[in-house]
């Protein structure tokens, strides 16, 4: 089979939480909270995290910037070594089982077309590194938030610029300039309306497992909507009335290995 003509100077920018994986940064924090040397501390941290969820949710609805400030304050006092070491465990136990089934395929298709793969995530960089390795994305192509550390202990603040909202678009522009990427010939994938700026700066925006607002926006702007979750769900939804359900499909591969 002939190799496809490769895109030159093109990149695919992926939001991660909700786009490539089913979980978000709160799950990661909850993981850290529950992994403490003392059982009592683990339990206390877990309860505290659970109680904070409504606050996080409200802050996220109001402003991603507020959310980041409130949320990352929870990391204050955590040691850098512990966070980095537990990141591998976080990936194995939490992130890996929650990667969307078709996420890796999408990245493979894009890479095969010669497109540079870039992760643009609001999560913390050390939690994203194992995922980037798994997806075959170079470390230089991982753009994520960085915690500020003083004497190897987190201050609870993020280094600027925050990777969120409109800043994502700014960061992508800077990245494109630095690596001679043509944004008009680039792709962006996200699940959330809050990442609208990220989609707006590329020539090929794609809504990926979108929330309702983004789905509606994608319809209005004629952007493709990609579902990286299991395909059989959609098949079931589209089954005409009166046809017996297909019970053997779930959990089995759609194509032979």
């Amino acid at each position, binding site marked *: *089979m002939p190799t496809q003509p490769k895109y030159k100077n093109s990149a695919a920018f992926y939001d991660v939480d909700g786009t490539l994986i089913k979980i978000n940064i709160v799950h990661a924090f909850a993981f850290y909270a529950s992994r403490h040397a003392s059982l009592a501390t683990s339990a206390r941290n877990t309860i505290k995290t659970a109680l904070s969820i409504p606050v996080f949710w409200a802050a996220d609805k109001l402003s991603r910037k507020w959310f980041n400030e409130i949320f990352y304050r929870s990391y204050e006092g955590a040691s850098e070594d512990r966070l980095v070491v537990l990141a591998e465990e976080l990936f194995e136990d939490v992130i890996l089982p929650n990667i969307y089934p078709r996420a890796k*395929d999408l990245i493979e298709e894009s890479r095969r077309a010669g497109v540079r793969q870039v992760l643009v995530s609001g999560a913390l960089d050390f939690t994203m590194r194992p995922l980037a390795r798994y997806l075959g994305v170079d470390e230089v192509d991982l753009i994520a938030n960085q915690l500020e550390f003083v004497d190897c202990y987190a201050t609870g603040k993020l280094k600027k610029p925050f990777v969120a909202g409109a800043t994502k678009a700014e960061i992508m522009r800077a990245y494109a300039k630095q690596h001679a990427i043509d944004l008009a010939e680039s792709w962006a994938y996200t699940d959330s309306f809050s990442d609208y700026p990220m989609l707006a700066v590329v020539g*090929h925006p794609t809504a990926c497992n979108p929330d309702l607002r983004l789905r509606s926006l994608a319809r209005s702007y004629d952007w*493709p909507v990609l579902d990286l979750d299991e395909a059989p769900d*959609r098949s079931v939804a589209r089954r005409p009335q*009166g046809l017996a359900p297909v019970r053997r*499909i779930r959990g089995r591969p*759609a194509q032979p290995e």
Partner: protein
Amino acid sequence: MRAIRPKIRSHTREHIVTIDTDSAPRIMFYGENLLIEDLPVGTRVIYPKRPMTPIANPRAAIRYALNHPEDAEPLHAMLSPGMKVTIAVDDISMPLPIMRTPDVRQLVLEIVCEMLADHGVDDVHIVIALGLHRRMHDWEIKRMVGQKVWDEYWPDRLYNHDGCDPEGMIDLGKTAHGELVEMNRRVAESDLTIYVNLNFVPMNGGNKSMAVGLCGYESLKAHHTPHGIVQSNSFMDPPKSYLSHSFKRQGDLIENTLKVFHIETVLNNRAFDGPLSFLTKNEDDFTEADRLKFQAMKWTLDKLPFAARREIFMRTPAAYEMIGCYAGACDPTHDRTVAKQNEQNCVEVDGPADILLFGVPYISPYNVNSKALNPLLVQVMALGYFYHMYRHQPILRDGGVLILTHPCSDKFDPVHHPSYIEFFNRVLTETTDSYTIEQKYQDELAYNPSYIEMYRRGNAYHGAHPCFMWYWGQRGREKTSRVIVVGADNATVPAIMGWETAGSVAEAIAMARGTMGRSAQITMLHHPPYMISDVM
């Protein structure tokens, strides 16, 4: 095996009706609804032939074809224990509407699979030969192949072809004309491929089965070009079709490289029966019951929302029946298939029309079980398929006016047709010139990783498919002077496609007469079911 011929009717030209002062109004499809229109006196209305009498025992006919093939050994003589066999089967794009179960493909598959098992052939895969069409949903495959085959083969040995799988495709070489031939790897590595075809139009089947059904984008773009379409006069007349010639070159290369046994089936044209049988009748012959049925249906459709109307039509399968089954080598088998098909579908017509009028129904080969017939598919039905439904000379003379009825709503199915949305709203608004689109946009859409992902693992048509659909109408666009759409619910969609709009058929005819003159010959094609006009 031959079908039993229908009784010879005394009225041999019953498929042509000329409208008189006392003629009944005619029913026309209008997307997911119907129109009833009074046509000007002198209008020629062409009806399909009556359905041919089906073969009484289709399973026996299939077995007979397998044991008495054209220019090949019987299938059982080709089989030996331990061999690797792949069965390729046509996808759901035909017939239209989908047929009642059991689908003829199910009948053929059950017999072939049984024969393979009897001969100790265990390494058998069934591949849905969809080319660059969308992957069939699991429930669609189950409905098509039947419970028995489904239980035995799904999902490990029954699956959709994937023309973009770099590991799953190989090159067989190039034709003398430089056309690349790609092939599904499993098929290429099999000792024998059995192709199960359901033939619905003459352009399908034969060499197209393997060359298109199991190919990838690189080999498809060799013939799916604006040039190829314009050179096809028409593509429903294989000897005069550039496409067919290209399929033949690619097909010859395949047949010389691989061992292929073709099985082709032909259906009659019983698209509607029972309470809907009035849709295929001459309106002058309507009984009171037919009139009541039509009025009831029209009243109901007018009251229902779009989605409900669509569901009603989509969930009403056609009563097609098998009238022929042939097997063996590619060309001789397909010759017999086409001959039988033409016997059913070709109607003699005296001379071309100046103004051609038809309704565009709710369905096309590319929107089965989709949420809408999108504007691009309306275009392909009008200027692609219906315009090309002729042999000898065009049913619409060059420079004539084409009138169609359809709402042309700005509705797309984002799951099945994601790249159509970009094509229609971005590409067509920049240029409608097929040659420019081919050069500038086709590869961009084809290699878009999002669209490739949607084609390979979702249920989307290939990224370049909308380009091919636009080329499909190229000859029609070049040969007609005006295209007028009646009843469009918006002005934008027709304008993007370069069409004019009219509020009624009468208004459209008046507009067309402005170009073609008061004495212009008006012809209406009364379909579905479709017919091919043998224009003398």
